[in-house]
């Protein structure tokens, strides 16, 4: 699998750790209220994501996929086990890891461009260079003429495109996406999925994509991590056998291999 995606990115072959995620024996217990029984959110989760790989986490609600994502982001700490990103253990959030949520979380008082530049402002990076870069990114998602607009003037899909630009502007090595298109209608979601693949193709970031949509997961990913609930755990990791001819288009959904893979995942989830 790594072979396929490293053609555009030499990091993996030269052994650089940028974009690599290692998850080893991670458990997470939550105590919902003081003194109450702890809930086992994740049990013995181990998985690796190679640099430049697109991996989806799929499972029913309560399987801990969002929890796992937040732990990779450094927003939560595992009760036991280790997580490392770029070859170093995760303790706190880091600049090389970008995050996207189901809601765009654009700030309504900022213009589109200023929303995209938010991470740059927070990092204290050079503004003029990144302004150009932000405009290029907006152009890439077809929103360059909206750079002065306020978020409320945009549709939900456009807002998520802006959020995508915001996560890309600081050039992170890893992008974590928590059901980023889950709140959109089916048409916008499919269009954004294709767009996301095209952008991933161009940038070759490591992407971890949380979804409960099996078709979406298979369509997008190199590998699908299938998770089960109570306790949250990894049931299986499926290689998506859809060849290396990226970027994929919706045509691939006609491929019997696609359907085969979707039904393999469905079977694991008991559907």
């Amino acid at each position, binding site marked *: 699998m790594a072979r396929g995606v490293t053609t555009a990115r030499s990091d993996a072959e030269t052994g650089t750790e940028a974009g690599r995620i290692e998850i080893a024996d991670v458990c997470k217990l939550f105590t919902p209220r003081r003194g109450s029984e702890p809930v086992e959110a994740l049990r013995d989760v181990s998985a690796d994501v190679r640099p430049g790989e697109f991996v989806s986490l799929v499972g029913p609600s309560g399987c801990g996929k969002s929890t796992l994502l937040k732990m990779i982001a450094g927003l939560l700490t595992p009760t036991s086990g280790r997580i490392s990103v770029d070859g170093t253990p995760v303790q706190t959030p880091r*600049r090389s890891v970008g995050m996207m*949520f189901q809601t765009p979380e654009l700030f309504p008082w900022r213009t589109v461009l200023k929303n995209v530049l938010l991470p740059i402002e927070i990092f204290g990076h050079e503004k003029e260079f990144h302004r150009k870069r932000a405009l290029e990114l907006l152009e890439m998602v077809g929103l360059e003429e909206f750079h002065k607009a306020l978020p409320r003037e945009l549709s939900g899909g456009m807002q998520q495109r802006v959020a995508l630009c915001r996560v890309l502007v600081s050039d992170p090595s890893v992008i974590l996406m928590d059901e980023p298109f889950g709140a959109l209608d089916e048409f916008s979601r499919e269009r954004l999925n294709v767009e996301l693949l095209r952008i991933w193709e161009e940038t070759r970031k490591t992407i971890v994509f949380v979804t409960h949509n099996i078709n979406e997961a298979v369509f997008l990913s190199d590998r699908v991590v299938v998770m089960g609930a109570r306790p949250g755990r990894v049931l299986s990791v499926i290689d998506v056998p859809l060849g290396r001819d990226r970027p994929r288009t919706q045509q691939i959904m006609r491929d019997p291999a696609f359907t085969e893979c979707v039904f393999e995942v469905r079977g694991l989830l008991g559907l």
Partner: protein
Amino acid sequence: MRAVNAKEMPAGSESTPVPGPARAGRRLSLRERPEIVLAPLAFVVLLAVWDLVTRTGVVAPVLLPSPWKVARALRLLLTAEWFPANLWTTVAETLAGFGIAAASAVAIAVLLDQIRLLRQVAYPYMVVMQVTPSIVLAPLFIVWFGFGISSKIVIAVSTAFFVVLVNTLSGLASVPENSRLLMRSMCASRLQTLFKLSLPTAMPFIFAALKTASTLALIGALVGEFVTARSGLGRLLTQFSFALRQDMMFATVIVVAALGVILYGLVAFLEKKLIWWR
């Protein structure tokens, strides 16, 4: 109403087809928004009833002066040489009280929002202080801070403070969880999160409170002046009351009302300027 109808009359003549659509448009807007005419009309009706009541002697003129008498008293009040100083006293007390209350309430709310333990400790006291009408402290504040302007400012602060504090706190608490996570995922510092996310999110809450607080500060200043004062509109009111000058009392009330409206309008104007994204 009659005036508007008279205006519409010429355009209403059937022989002129050209202004037709425009006329229809105007009529429609009047029909859709009758309050444009009805609200001023209500005022005229009120004045007429007031006038009628005083003319017929249903209410003794000592108790309720006629509108014309109040109008004369208002002119007298506004042109009196002692009026500006009294007006300024109340304005200064209100503005100072409002400003101090707003600034300190927002600052304390931010502090409470940042330090959870502090918030939990302070919460019951805040509830007690909020449900106690702070006006009852006015006589005490006069004893503590004297007869001058400073005791009125303290009273104005105490009446205007809590609504800003409580609203700012709920504004800061209304920041979406994912927005917080986003800021954390970008390694934003506490100050960055406060200034780039929390405070802008709380702004509409803060301004809603500031509008109420502007009126409350005016009430505080006036009540302080009622208790004891050397100068101010509240003092004028009590003096006119003792002198049985109801016409002058009404005139003062009109000035106070105008002051309240102007203050509120200023805050509402600032709100529009500062919260442009709404």
